[in-house]
């Protein structure tokens, strides 16, 4: 049991280290460090409606993070979750536009599927570039994120733009109220069930199928699985596409759920946070579930903090950045430091 507990303690310790770094920076610019840290906890867990907020921010992250786990386990550093998430939302928004007028039981599944297809496609080309040409997926998926962000600007101020009023919003028309799967500021049973399904299916895929075990082996040593006769390319492409589809699903959930419309530049850190979650969870699907809720709480707190403490938004960015900086650190490494100094 201690084996399971250890990573949790380790991660907790490094989050503390990250917060210490933040406090140093805050102290340097004259902000109260302890006050800020207390406010973070307060905002995460003790604000009104805290649980609802945590679920609202955590669950879509969870869906994307499960996808990231699947592709990372297969050995591919697909950092394109953000772009795949955007493409999912864009495709779902197009589907919603085309299906205008149709009943919810048709439109909602269709939009969710369209979102998955969009995300999957946005993961497919880096996958093919990787397995066919050997082009590094870190760069291709990163570029994919930039391109997707431009696409989002384009569709929200062009083809999907809401023409109502003076037409000055860079966003799509609101989706039909009947299709919404959650309220704007909260979560809903539908999203909870969707996220639960994704976790369960993801867990099953990773732990109870051939694909799960072979992709885990391939992720650590593709040569070995090749010599076992597995088709590594097929595993790779499936892993990319699955992770893209899940990011796309999260995009369409955001569209039909809390957002209710497609807006230029929405949730710009979604993909990156999902990657953090996957890494912190140590590539475990179930752990990703809990860590996603932790990050949901952090996001919720980050929105509460400027209101309560007047903390500048840059300070919130710094908290996130320091956590990213430290959270993948490994314990026992400090021992290495001592050895190094002895040299």
């Amino acid at each position, binding site marked *: 049991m201690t084996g399971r507990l250890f990573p949790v303690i380790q991660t907790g310790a490094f989050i503390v280290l990250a917060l210490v770094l933040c406090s140093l920076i805050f102290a340097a610019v004259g902000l109260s460090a302890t006050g800020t840290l207390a406010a973070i906890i307060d905002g995460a867990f003790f604000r009104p409606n805290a649980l609802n907020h945590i679920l609202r921010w955590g669950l879509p992250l969870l869906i994307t993070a499960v996808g990231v786990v699947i592709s990372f386990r297969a050995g591919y550093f697909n950092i394109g979750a953000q772009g795949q998430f955007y493409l999912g939302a864009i495709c779902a928004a197009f589907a919603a536009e085309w299906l205008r007028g149709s009943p919810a039981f048709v439109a909602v599944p269709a939009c969710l599927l369209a979102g998955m297809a969009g995300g999957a496609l946005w993961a497919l080309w880096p996958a093919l570039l990787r397995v066919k040409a050997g082009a590094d997926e870190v760069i291709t998926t990163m570029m994919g994120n930039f391109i997707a962000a431009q696409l989002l600007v384009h569709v929200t101020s062009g083809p999907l*733009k809401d023409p109502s009023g*003076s037409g000055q919003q860079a966003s799509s028309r609101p989706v039909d109220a009947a299709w919404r799967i959650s309220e704007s500021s909260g979560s809903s049973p539908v999203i909870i069930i969707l996220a639960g399904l994704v976790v369960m299916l993801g867990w099953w895929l990773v732990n109870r199928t051939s694909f799960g075990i072979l992709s885990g082996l391939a992720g650590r040593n593709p040569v070995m699985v090749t010599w076992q006769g597995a088709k590594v390319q097929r595993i790779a492409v499936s892993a990319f596409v699955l992770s893209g589809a899940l990011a796309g699903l999260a995009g369409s959930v*955001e569209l039909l759920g809390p957002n209710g*419309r497609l807006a230029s530049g929405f949730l710009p850190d979604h993909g990156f946070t999902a990657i953090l979650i996957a890494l912190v969870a140590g590539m475990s699907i179930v752990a990703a579930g809990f860590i996603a809720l932790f990050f949901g709480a952090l996001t919720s707190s980050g929105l509460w903090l400027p209101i*309560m*403490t007047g903390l500048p938004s840059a300070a919130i960015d710094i908290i996130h950045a320091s956590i990213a900086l430290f959270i993948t650190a490994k314990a026992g490494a400090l021992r290495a430091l001592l050895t190094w100094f002895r040299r």
Partner: protein
Amino acid sequence: ANAAGGLIALVHTQAAGDAGPVDSMIAKLNEFAKEHDMTPRAIYAEDPSTYETIFTSLGEAGAAIVVSTFNEVAEPFKAVAPNFPDTKFIQLFADPFEPVIPNVVTVSYDYYLGCYLSGIFAARITRSGKLGFIGGISIPPINADYNAFKAGALSVNPDLTVAVAFAGSFQDPAKGQEIASQMFSDGIDYIQTDAAATDFGIIAAAGENDGRVVSTLDPAQFPLDPESVISIVGLDFGTSLYNEATKALESGWSGGHQSTGLGTGVIDFIPSPLFAEKGPEDLRKLAEAALPFVDEARNKILDGSLSVPFDTNL
């Protein structure tokens, strides 16, 4: 921790540091809060997904006044404001709400009209017959400004060309400089900017050679380069915020819509007084000659005899 007068919050959806609307709103917010012993909060909301949560949180925190900007916050306002009847919501740069929500005031700006005037002015300043427009990101309000600028210019001389380019960011002065340099070397000699902090690079590019002028958007930019910044299409969000917040504290305040635009002092085409002193001789003369035409167009717009098309598509 709140001061006696309560909390007044500005939720700005564009980044601070633009030497323009956002900076001036923050300054006025702080000034207003000090005068009324209120706690000011300037909250940067970059992500549209967070608007509702932020407004709800402000409501829950018992904010007295919440000010926000641009049409993107309209739907969140409609969703949140009814839940917090004691909080007064002000949306600057808005379409009117139908039906009116009793605790929301919307203020519309006809910024594009100022751009139209700049187009008229530009058409009379240019010697090459080539004008430029540089926006931050191609979003609908910026597109509308470009279309109005172009319409104004073509109304003077249909043979002019108006090039348009976007930097892709409101915070990228280097890109602004690169775009402006290319425009200037193409023979363009007048650029209207609409790109917040990106403008700094455009002004720098104009300063690199004689005969290049830019029209920007805030009086604070006049001194950056007195010989190149010829004018601005001003939009005084800060004053607007101050005025609306003052009204909100008065008794008998109620929600509704407020139109501001040309003629109210909030939006106007304003020639640079510094340029009038220090600008190159020939351009100063051209500017002096052009201004009466601008005034004439302004009057016609105000009395309704001239209608300027509003088009948010590129």
